[in-house]
């Protein structure tokens, strides 16, 4: 126990000295650079404010990104060129085919469910009393990590042999309804969808809260005017409310696509990628850190990046539009 106390003290000392060191360096830089005046003052300030970010982005994202692209054309140890071998492997390997199908399923099903359910609840929340209670309960899973959520759902999906008492909620419900429970994590293709439920369970609250805020921000006079003109119910929603929150809805959808593409924790915790549930991000990790094949791992990372580029292009276009309007 005393050893635990002493290592804990060491750990916290390192945290606070790291943070203190960081602020002292910044303070000294600010003080020194602040003394510069005249023509040099502006460029010096610019460098001190901007350089840390640029250096970190260069060293942490840009150069590694380029090296990953290069690695994807190299052998497992990244010391010899192999051309497109790592990419043709993807086309030939039947496992990769399953992975691609699963990944595409994830990016189609998960964002639509997350956003649609979030929108539905956001609309309904707007119409009830005491909305803050259900709202915070629905948002709560968002604070749980994917690993934690997976553990919670391992319990829901737990299966016992027929005849024993089912301690998993899903099995118990199926039994109650007169069906026969089965080992859910082994039954494909259902297992992939059961994993998706975990993702939707944690992330739906995010979409709901953002869409709810967007709905509340629709100007009251516009709604009032259209109500006077006879727009009610579904028509009011379709012609007035939805167009006004469309931008937010697309942001929620896009966030869902990005998240679903990168999903790794859930698959890893629930099935380890076995039983035909594997996805791109998990396979990338396995190739690099289990098979020690940096070439194939990098190629998978590049595919992951390419799948995200449409969203990147869309984001940049809408940011441009936004900026040109203001």
């Amino acid at each position, binding site marked *: 126990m005393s050893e635990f106390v002493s290592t804990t003290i060491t750990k916290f000392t390192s945290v606070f000295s790291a943070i203190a060191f960081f602020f002292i360096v910044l303070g000294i830089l600010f003080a020194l650079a602040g003394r510069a005046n005249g023509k040099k003052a502006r460029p010096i300030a610019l460098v001190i404010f901007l350089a840390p970010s640029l250096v970190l982005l260069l060293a942490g994202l840009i150069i590694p990104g380029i090296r990953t692209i290069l690695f994807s054309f190299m052998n497992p140890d990244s010391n010899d060129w192999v051309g497109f071998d790592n990419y043709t492997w993807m086309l030939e390997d039947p496992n990769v085919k399953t992975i691609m199908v699963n990944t595409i399923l994830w990016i189609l099903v998960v964002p639509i469910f997350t956003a649609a359910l979030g929108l539905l609840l956001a609309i309904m929340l707007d*119409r009830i009393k005491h909305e803050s209670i259900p709202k915070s309960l629905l948002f709560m899973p968002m604070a749980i990590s994917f690993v934690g959520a997976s553990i919670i759902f391992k319990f829901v999906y737990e299966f016992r042999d027929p005849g024993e008492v089912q301690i998993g909620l899903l099995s118990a419900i199926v039994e109650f309804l007169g069906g026969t429970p089965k080992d859910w994590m082994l039954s494909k293709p259902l297992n992939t969808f059961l994993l998706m439920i975990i993702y939707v369970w944690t992330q739906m609250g995010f979409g709901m809260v953002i869409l709810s805020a967007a709905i509340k921000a629709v100007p009251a006079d516009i709604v009032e005017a259209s109500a006077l003109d006879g727009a009610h119910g579904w028509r009011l929603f379709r012609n007035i409310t939805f167009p006004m929150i469309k931008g937010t809805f697309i942001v929620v959808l896009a966030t869902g696509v990005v998240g679903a593409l990168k999903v790794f924790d859930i698959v890893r915790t629930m099935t380890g990628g076995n039983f035909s549930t594997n996805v791109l*991000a998990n396979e990338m990790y396995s190739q690099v850190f289990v098979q020690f094949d940096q070439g194939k791992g990098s190629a998978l990372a590049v595919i992951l990046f390419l799948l995200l580029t449409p969203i990147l292009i869309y984001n940049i276009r809408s940011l441009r539009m936004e900026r040109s309007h203001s």
Partner: protein
Amino acid sequence: MSNLKIASHNPGRKLFSSKIATVVVWVTTVIWTIPTLGLFVTSFKADKEILNEPWWVSLFNPNFTLSSYKGVFFGDSSESLSNGVLPYFINSIVITLPATVFPIVIATMAAYALAWIRFRGSDFIFFFIFALQIVPLQMALIPLLLLFTGGAHIGSVTIFPALGIAGDFAGIWLPHTMFALPLAIYLLHNFIASLPRDLMEAAHVDGANHFKVFRMIVLPLSIPGIAAIAIFQFMWVWNDLLVALTFASGTEEVAPINSKLASLVGQYGSGKALFITQRPLKVIHQ
């Protein structure tokens, strides 16, 4: 008329009647909460009962104990938990605090420069950083790990020595800081750019330089934005698994609680022993 007035406050009104909305929302809320409730109830059950009795039965047949919590905090007989999870819990705090402070401060500085020290190319840099948001972590993982363990070389010339921080706390703070920057800069830029121009100009007229303006005006006024982003960054780092698995070894010295949780699941597989330790872990974790 009164009906119309309510409608003006509730654009979604009339789409569903209020009663249906209430029922649907509350039913969904209950369904959404049940899995967590199951975990919560299970965490107070004795080991044997966890495996033999569904938690919803235990609810009506209460026989609760704190033994799981004791095992988790102070260790139990099983090998993987001989010292409990407290060291991992502390690692999580040790990782998360600097990994939140560093990127937020650095991003605030960059956001200020891009918003208020305009220069040729500042728009381009802003768009570029915005675009970097979409680059998946996976793209940077392998080269970054190589950089930490082996340094950077061109041919046989070492242009950067091995940092030697792989498996160290600094080796986890740094990637988290790097990966957090694009989003943090973008969001903080939006916030800082909307501060009133008059205020900045008045300060400059009074002789304040950029550093003074940043400290005395920008920082205090950006606190709401900074706080919101810091909370998200905190949650992100706390719940992260990929960076932790890659840059921290799984040991008691540096591994955060989330990767310990994941490895416990791995060790027990879907075996029955899983439930002995998982439940209470999750409750404190959250």
